[in-house]
C-alpha cells in the first residue's frame, strides 16, 4: 500500500473512466476532500470522459421498453430532494452510481423556465411562416460536406467581441461543461441545430440539408434577446455558401442567456435588421 502507484493523485484518469475498484475509489475520494487541485482535475477529466460517450453511435430502444418504463414510474416514488449540498449526506439514500455522477445534490430544480421570457421568445422568431423559395446558385462554399468545424464567416454589422472564428470555436462550445443543443426544422427542408454554452456566451448553427439561398441572397444569422434583455435583435453574421450537405457557423457577437437564434434570407452582404420571415428560429431554452 505504500508503493508509488497507490498515490491517489494518479487515480484521476482511472476515476473518470470508471476503472477504479471500490477501494481505490475510496482512496481517491478521501484525497479529494482535502485537495481542490485534485478535485478540479477529477472534474475536468470526468467531463472529458463524457465526450467519449457523446461519440458513440446511438441505438433506438424498442418501443416495449418505454411502455414498461412508463408503467413502472407511474408507481415508483421519487427520492425526496436533499437540502444539504455536501456529498456526504446523499450517501444514505443514493445508489453508488448516482453519487459518482453527481456528488452534490441540490435544491432548485423546480425554478425552471421563466414563462414571460419564454412567451417573448415565442412571439418573435418562434417559427417561420413562409417556406424558402427554391434554391438557386450560390458562390462561396462555407464548409466541406461532412464534419464541419469552423470556417469562413462574415460578420455583417456590429461584430462584437470574439468574432474571429478559428476552427476551435465549435469545439469550444461542444466541450463546454454547460453545452446544450436544440434542433428545429427549417422551412423549405432540412434542419438547423443550435449548440450553445451560456458560460462561453457563444452559440453555433449547424445546417443539414438546407438548400442554397436564392441568387443574390444570403443567409443571415440573428440573436434575438429574451424579453428580460429587451428582446434586442442583433446581426450575428452571414452564412454564405450554404448548399445542401452540412454547414456550420459560430455566431458572431455574444449570446445572452435565453436568446433565440434565427436565420433569414437577406440580400447579399446582409442587412442590419431582418427584412424577411425567418426560415427557422431556435430558442436556447436552458432556463
Amino acid at each position: 500500500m505504500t508503493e508509488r502507484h497507490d498515490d491517489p493523485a494518479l487515480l484521476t484518469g482511472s476515476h473518470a473512466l470508471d476503472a477504479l475498484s471500490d477501494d481505490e475509489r475510496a482512496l481517491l475520494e478521501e484525497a479529494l476532500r482535502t485537495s481542490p487541485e485534485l478535485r478540479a482535475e477529477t472534474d475536468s477529466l470526468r467531463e472529458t470522459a463524457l465526450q467519449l460517450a457523446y461519440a458513440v453511435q446511438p441505438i433506438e430502444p424498442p418501443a416495449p421498453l418505454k411502455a414498461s418504463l412508463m408503467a413502472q414510474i407511474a408507481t415508483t416514488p421519487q427520492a425526496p430532494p436533499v437540502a444539504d449540498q455536501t456529498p456526504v449526506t446523499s450517501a444514505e439514500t443514493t445508489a453508488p452510481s448516482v453519487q459518482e455522477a453527481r456528488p452534490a445534490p441540490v435544491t432548485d430544480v423546480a425554478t425552471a423556465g421563466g414563462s414571460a421570457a419564454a412567451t417573448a421568445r415565442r412571439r418573435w422568431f418562434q417559427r417561420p411562416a413562409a417556406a424558402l423559395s427554391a434554391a438557386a446558385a450560390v458562390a462561396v462554399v462555407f464548409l466541406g460536406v461532412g464534419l464541419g468545424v469552423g470556417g469562413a464567416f462574415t460578420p455583417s454589422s456590429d461584430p462584437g467581441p470574439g468574432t474571429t472564428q478559428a476552427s476551435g470555436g465549435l469545439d469550444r462550445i461542444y466541450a463546454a461543461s454547460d453545452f446544450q443543443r436544440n434542433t428545429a426544422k427549417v422551412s423549405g427542408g432540412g434542419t438547423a441545430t443550435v449548440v450553445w454554452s451560456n458560460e462561453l456566451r457563444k452559440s453555433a448553427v449547424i445546417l443539414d440539408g438546407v438548400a442554397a439561398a436564392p441568387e443574390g441572397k444570403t443567409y443571415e444569422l440573428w440573436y434575438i434577446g429574451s424579453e428580460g434583455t429587451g428582446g434586442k435583435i442583433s446581426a450575428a453574421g452571414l452564412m454564405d455558401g450554404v448548399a445542401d450537405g452540412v454547414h456550420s457557423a459560430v455566431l458572431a457577437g455574444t449570446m445572452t442567456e435565453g436568446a433565440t437564434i434565427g436565420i433569414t434570407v437577406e440580400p447579399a452582404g446582409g442587412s442590419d435588421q431582418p427584412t424577411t420571415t425567418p426560415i427557422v428560429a431556435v430558442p436556447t431554452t436552458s432556463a
Partner: protein
Amino acid sequence: MLAIVERDTGWSSAEPAPVSADELLSRVAAGDQAAFSDLYDELSGRVLGLVTRLLKDRAQSEEVTQEVFLEVWQQATRFDRARGTAASWILTMAHRRAVDRVRASQSSHDRDTRIGIRDFEAGFDQVSESVEIRIEHERVSRALSKLTEFQRQAVQLAYYGGFSHSEMAERLGVPIGTVKTRLRDGMIRLRDEMGVTS
C-alpha cells in the same frame, strides 16, 4: 394569445418551442411523467448506444437502459444543474452501471482487449448518422489520434471495454502503476486536445 401575436409579427406559430433536456429533467423532478416521456425519447438512444458499446449483449443492454431511466425518475429531484447538463448526468450514470454489469457478468477473459481506434470506428456509419453525432465522433476521433498508442489503448479499454486497471495490467502485461499513468496522461491529453474546461 398566440394568434394575436402572430398577427402582430407574422413570425410566430402555434407550435411549442423545443424543450431542452435540462428543462425536461426539472419537470421530471416535479413528478411530470409526460416530461419523463420526452426526456426518454431524447436520450434513450444515446444511453442504449453507450451501454451496448460496453455490454455487447442487446437484451442486457436494454435492461440496463431501463434501470438507468428508472433511476433518472427516482433521482431527478437531486439533480444539480450547476454541476453539468442533464445529458451528462444521465450518461455518466449509464456508463457506471454498464461497467458494474460488465464486471459482474463477464470475466475479463471473455472480453476482447483488442480495442483500438479501428474498433472505435467500426460500426460507425458516417452516412446514416445525424450531423451532430458525426461531428462529435469526428472530434473525439481526432483528439484520440493525438494520444500515444499506449495511452489510446488504455483509455479505450477502460471506457469502451469497461476494464478495471488491474484487469488491464494483467492483460497488457504491464505493472498496474503503468496503467494508471497511461490512463491519467491519456485523459489529460484528451482533455487538452478537446479544450474541455471545467
